[in-house]
Protein backbone atom coordinates (compact mmCIF):
# COMPACT_ATOMS: atom_id res chain seq x y z
CA UNK A 1 0.00 0.00 0.00
CA UNK A 2 2.53 2.53 -1.12
CA UNK A 3 1.96 6.19 -1.78
CA UNK A 4 1.45 6.01 -5.50
CA UNK A 5 -1.14 3.29 -5.00
CA UNK A 6 -3.01 5.63 -2.69
CA UNK A 7 -2.64 8.45 -5.21
CA UNK A 8 -3.81 6.23 -8.03
CA UNK A 9 -6.79 5.02 -6.11
CA UNK A 10 -7.70 8.57 -5.15
CA UNK A 11 -7.39 9.97 -8.64
CA UNK A 12 -9.10 6.99 -10.24
CA UNK A 13 -12.10 7.20 -7.95
CA UNK A 14 -12.22 10.95 -8.42
CA UNK A 15 -12.05 10.62 -12.17
CA UNK A 16 -14.72 7.98 -12.50
CA UNK A 17 -17.06 9.58 -10.01
CA UNK A 18 -16.90 13.02 -11.57
CA UNK A 19 -17.19 11.46 -15.03
CA UNK A 20 -20.41 9.81 -13.99
CA UNK A 21 -21.59 13.07 -12.47
CA UNK A 22 -20.62 14.87 -15.63
CA UNK A 23 -22.85 12.64 -17.68
CA UNK A 24 -25.75 12.76 -15.29
CA UNK A 25 -25.90 16.39 -14.18
CA UNK A 26 -28.82 18.40 -15.41
CA UNK A 27 -26.94 21.69 -15.41
CA UNK A 28 -24.42 21.94 -18.18
CA UNK A 29 -22.06 24.14 -16.22
CA UNK A 30 -21.91 21.55 -13.49
CA UNK A 31 -21.16 18.90 -16.08
CA UNK A 32 -18.35 21.06 -17.36
CA UNK A 33 -16.97 21.48 -13.87
CA UNK A 34 -17.07 17.76 -13.30
CA UNK A 35 -15.41 17.11 -16.60
CA UNK A 36 -12.69 19.49 -15.52
CA UNK A 37 -12.33 17.52 -12.35
CA UNK A 38 -12.02 14.33 -14.34
CA UNK A 39 -9.37 15.84 -16.51
CA UNK A 40 -7.45 17.09 -13.51
CA UNK A 41 -7.66 13.68 -11.97
CA UNK A 42 -6.35 12.20 -15.19
CA UNK A 43 -3.56 14.74 -15.06
CA UNK A 44 -2.84 13.56 -11.55
CA UNK A 45 -2.63 10.00 -12.83
CA UNK A 46 -0.17 11.15 -15.47
CA UNK A 47 1.90 12.71 -12.74
CA UNK A 48 1.70 9.48 -10.80
CA UNK A 49 2.97 7.81 -13.99
CA UNK A 50 6.00 10.14 -13.80
CA UNK A 51 5.03 11.87 -17.04
CA UNK A 52 5.38 15.42 -15.84
CA UNK A 53 5.35 16.86 -19.29
CA UNK A 54 2.12 15.20 -20.25
CA UNK A 55 0.72 16.28 -16.93
CA UNK A 56 1.50 19.87 -17.71
CA UNK A 57 0.26 19.54 -21.26
CA UNK A 58 -2.94 17.99 -20.04
CA UNK A 59 -3.51 20.81 -17.58
CA UNK A 60 -2.54 23.66 -19.86
CA UNK A 61 -4.14 22.43 -23.05
CA UNK A 62 -7.12 20.46 -21.85
CA UNK A 63 -8.10 22.19 -18.69
CA UNK A 64 -6.68 25.60 -19.39
CA UNK A 65 -7.56 25.71 -23.03
CA UNK A 66 -10.17 23.36 -24.33
CA UNK A 67 -12.36 23.38 -21.29
CA UNK A 68 -12.22 27.15 -21.07
CA UNK A 69 -13.49 27.14 -24.59
CA UNK A 70 -16.28 24.80 -23.55
CA UNK A 71 -17.26 26.92 -20.60
CA UNK A 72 -17.18 29.96 -22.77
CA UNK A 73 -19.49 28.45 -25.35
CA UNK A 74 -21.73 27.05 -22.66
CA UNK A 75 -22.16 30.48 -21.20
CA UNK A 76 -22.85 31.87 -24.63
CA UNK A 77 -25.54 29.35 -25.53
CA UNK A 78 -26.83 28.61 -22.07
CA UNK A 79 -30.62 28.67 -22.02
CA UNK A 80 -32.47 28.48 -18.75
CA UNK A 81 -35.31 26.73 -20.51
CA UNK A 82 -33.05 23.84 -21.31
CA UNK A 83 -32.67 23.30 -17.58
CA UNK A 84 -36.31 22.31 -17.30
CA UNK A 85 -36.36 20.13 -20.36
CA UNK A 86 -35.82 16.42 -20.55
CA UNK A 87 -32.08 15.85 -20.61
CA UNK A 88 -32.07 12.39 -22.11
CA UNK A 89 -33.26 11.41 -25.54
CA UNK A 90 -35.75 8.75 -26.52
CA UNK A 91 -33.24 6.00 -27.04
CA UNK A 92 -31.72 6.43 -23.61
CA UNK A 93 -32.53 3.00 -22.16
CA UNK A 94 -31.37 1.06 -25.21
CA UNK A 95 -28.34 3.30 -25.51
CA UNK A 96 -27.34 2.94 -21.88
CA UNK A 97 -27.78 -0.81 -22.15
CA UNK A 98 -25.67 -1.01 -25.24
CA UNK A 99 -22.97 1.21 -23.81
CA UNK A 100 -22.76 -0.88 -20.70
CA UNK A 101 -22.73 -3.97 -22.88
CA UNK A 102 -19.77 -2.64 -24.75
CA UNK A 103 -18.02 -1.91 -21.48
CA UNK A 104 -18.80 -5.38 -20.24
CA UNK A 105 -17.50 -6.89 -23.43
CA UNK A 106 -14.20 -5.10 -23.19
CA UNK A 107 -14.02 -6.02 -19.52
CA UNK A 108 -14.59 -9.61 -20.46
CA UNK A 109 -11.85 -9.32 -23.01
CA UNK A 110 -9.51 -8.01 -20.37
CA UNK A 111 -10.61 -10.69 -17.95
CA UNK A 112 -9.92 -13.43 -20.41
CA UNK A 113 -6.87 -12.09 -22.15
CA UNK A 114 -5.47 -9.73 -19.57
CA UNK A 115 -2.88 -12.23 -18.40
CA UNK A 116 -1.65 -12.57 -21.98
CA UNK A 117 -0.38 -8.94 -21.98
CA UNK A 118 3.23 -9.95 -21.99
CA UNK A 119 4.94 -6.77 -20.83
CA UNK A 120 8.25 -6.29 -19.06
CA UNK A 121 7.52 -5.53 -15.45
CA UNK A 122 7.41 -1.74 -15.24
CA UNK A 123 9.57 -1.72 -12.14
CA UNK A 124 12.52 -3.02 -14.07
CA UNK A 125 12.84 -0.05 -16.40
CA UNK A 126 12.38 3.53 -15.26
CA UNK A 127 11.58 6.39 -17.56
CA UNK A 128 14.48 8.77 -18.08
CA UNK A 129 14.35 11.38 -15.35
CA UNK A 130 14.37 14.23 -17.85
CA UNK A 131 10.95 13.40 -19.19
CA UNK A 132 10.41 16.54 -21.28
CA UNK A 133 13.82 16.22 -22.92
CA UNK A 134 13.07 12.63 -23.86
CA UNK A 135 9.71 13.60 -25.32
CA UNK A 136 11.15 16.50 -27.25
CA UNK A 137 13.84 14.21 -28.56
CA UNK A 138 11.40 11.56 -29.71
CA UNK A 139 8.97 14.12 -31.05
CA UNK A 140 11.42 16.01 -33.19
CA UNK A 141 13.54 13.08 -34.22
CA UNK A 142 11.28 10.13 -34.93
CA UNK A 143 7.89 11.82 -35.15
CA UNK A 144 8.70 14.94 -37.11
CA UNK A 145 6.25 14.29 -39.92
CA UNK A 146 3.31 13.46 -37.66
CA UNK A 147 4.14 16.56 -35.68
CA UNK A 148 3.99 18.72 -38.76
CA UNK A 149 0.79 17.04 -39.87
CA UNK A 150 -0.72 17.72 -36.48
CA UNK A 151 0.22 21.37 -36.76
CA UNK A 152 -1.41 21.53 -40.18
CA UNK A 153 -4.49 19.91 -38.66
CA UNK A 154 -4.57 22.57 -35.97
CA UNK A 155 -4.25 25.30 -38.51
CA UNK A 156 -7.10 23.91 -40.56
CA UNK A 157 -9.22 23.52 -37.44
CA UNK A 158 -8.52 27.08 -36.46
CA UNK A 159 -9.54 28.45 -39.83
CA UNK A 160 -12.60 26.25 -39.80
CA UNK A 161 -13.62 27.43 -36.35
CA UNK A 162 -13.17 31.06 -37.29
CA UNK A 163 -15.21 30.69 -40.45
CA UNK A 164 -17.86 28.72 -38.59
CA UNK A 165 -18.24 31.23 -35.78
CA UNK A 166 -18.31 34.38 -37.90
CA UNK A 167 -21.58 36.23 -37.55
CA UNK A 168 -22.34 36.44 -41.25
CA UNK A 169 -21.12 33.37 -43.06
Amino acid at each position, binding site marked *: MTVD*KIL*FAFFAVL*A*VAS*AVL*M*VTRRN*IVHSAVF*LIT*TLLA*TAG*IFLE*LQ*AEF*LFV*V*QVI*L*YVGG*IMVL*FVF*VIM*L*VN*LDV*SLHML*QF*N*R*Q*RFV*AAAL*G*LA*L*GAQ*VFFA*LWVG*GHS*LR*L*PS*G*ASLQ*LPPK*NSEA*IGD*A*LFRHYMLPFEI*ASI*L*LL*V*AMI*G*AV*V*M*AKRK*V
Partner: protein
Amino acid sequence: MVPLEAYLLLSLALLTVGVVGVLIRRNVIIMLMSIELILNAVNINLMAFSRAWGNVYGQIFAIFIITDAAAEAAVGLGIILAFFRNRETVLADEMDLLKW
Protein backbone atom coordinates in the same frame (compact mmCIF):
# COMPACT_ATOMS: atom_id res chain seq x y z
CA MET B 1 3.82 -0.16 -8.31
CA VAL B 2 0.34 -0.05 -9.73
CA PRO B 3 -0.42 -2.97 -12.05
CA LEU B 4 -1.19 -2.23 -15.66
CA GLU B 5 -4.65 -3.74 -15.45
CA ALA B 6 -5.70 -1.04 -13.03
CA TYR B 7 -5.07 1.65 -15.60
CA LEU B 8 -6.82 -0.39 -18.23
CA LEU B 9 -9.84 -0.81 -16.01
CA LEU B 10 -9.87 2.89 -15.21
CA SER B 11 -9.72 3.83 -18.86
CA LEU B 12 -12.40 1.25 -19.60
CA ALA B 13 -14.64 2.80 -17.01
CA LEU B 14 -14.11 6.29 -18.43
CA LEU B 15 -14.68 4.94 -21.92
CA THR B 16 -17.95 3.34 -20.96
CA VAL B 17 -19.17 6.45 -19.21
CA GLY B 18 -18.19 8.51 -22.21
CA VAL B 19 -19.94 6.24 -24.68
CA VAL B 20 -23.06 6.18 -22.62
CA GLY B 21 -22.94 9.94 -22.31
CA VAL B 22 -22.56 10.42 -26.03
CA LEU B 23 -25.44 8.07 -26.62
CA ILE B 24 -28.00 9.34 -24.15
CA ARG B 25 -27.56 13.06 -23.64
CA ARG B 26 -29.62 15.36 -25.80
CA ASN B 27 -27.33 18.33 -25.33
CA VAL B 28 -24.74 18.50 -28.07
CA ILE B 29 -22.19 20.23 -25.87
CA ILE B 30 -22.34 17.42 -23.38
CA MET B 31 -21.95 14.95 -26.21
CA LEU B 32 -18.79 16.74 -27.19
CA MET B 33 -17.59 16.66 -23.62
CA SER B 34 -18.23 12.94 -23.46
CA ILE B 35 -16.13 12.54 -26.54
CA GLU B 36 -13.37 14.37 -24.73
CA LEU B 37 -13.84 11.87 -21.95
CA ILE B 38 -13.36 8.98 -24.35
CA LEU B 39 -10.21 10.55 -25.68
CA ASN B 40 -8.96 10.83 -22.14
CA ALA B 41 -9.55 7.18 -21.55
CA VAL B 42 -7.42 6.48 -24.59
CA ASN B 43 -4.76 8.79 -23.24
CA ILE B 44 -4.65 6.95 -19.97
CA ASN B 45 -4.14 3.71 -21.82
CA LEU B 46 -1.34 5.13 -23.86
CA MET B 47 0.36 6.61 -20.85
CA ALA B 48 0.09 3.40 -18.91
CA PHE B 49 1.61 1.35 -21.70
CA SER B 50 4.33 3.89 -22.28
CA ARG B 51 5.17 3.67 -18.59
CA ALA B 52 5.13 -0.11 -18.74
CA TRP B 53 7.38 -0.24 -21.78
CA GLY B 54 9.62 2.35 -20.29
CA ASN B 55 9.72 4.57 -23.34
CA VAL B 56 8.00 7.81 -24.23
CA TYR B 57 6.31 6.89 -27.48
CA GLY B 58 2.97 6.39 -25.82
CA GLN B 59 3.23 9.90 -24.49
CA ILE B 60 3.96 11.16 -27.99
CA PHE B 61 0.73 9.63 -29.17
CA ALA B 62 -1.05 11.08 -26.22
CA ILE B 63 0.17 14.49 -27.31
CA PHE B 64 -1.14 13.91 -30.76
CA ILE B 65 -4.46 12.85 -29.34
CA ILE B 66 -4.65 16.00 -27.26
CA THR B 67 -3.92 18.04 -30.37
CA ASP B 68 -6.68 16.21 -32.11
CA ALA B 69 -9.03 16.87 -29.23
CA ALA B 70 -8.23 20.56 -29.39
CA ALA B 71 -8.95 20.75 -33.09
CA GLU B 72 -12.13 18.74 -32.69
CA ALA B 73 -13.34 20.91 -29.83
CA ALA B 74 -12.66 24.10 -31.73
CA VAL B 75 -14.51 23.04 -34.85
CA GLY B 76 -17.31 21.32 -32.97
CA LEU B 77 -17.96 24.33 -30.77
CA GLY B 78 -17.83 26.56 -33.79
CA ILE B 79 -20.48 24.46 -35.46
CA ILE B 80 -22.56 24.50 -32.31
CA LEU B 81 -22.36 28.27 -32.12
CA ALA B 82 -23.38 28.67 -35.74
CA PHE B 83 -26.22 26.24 -35.30
CA PHE B 84 -27.37 27.91 -32.14
CA ARG B 85 -27.51 31.24 -33.91
CA ASN B 86 -29.76 29.81 -36.60
CA ARG B 87 -31.99 27.44 -34.66
CA GLU B 88 -31.86 28.67 -31.05
CA THR B 89 -31.24 25.17 -29.83
CA VAL B 90 -28.39 22.92 -28.84
CA LEU B 91 -30.39 19.71 -28.57
CA ALA B 92 -29.23 16.88 -30.77
CA ASP B 93 -32.64 15.48 -31.60
CA GLU B 94 -33.82 18.87 -32.80
CA MET B 95 -31.11 18.87 -35.42
CA ASP B 96 -32.96 16.72 -37.91
CA LEU B 97 -32.36 18.59 -41.13
CA LEU B 98 -30.95 15.40 -42.62
CA LYS B 99 -34.11 13.43 -41.98
CA TRP B 100 -35.62 11.93 -45.08
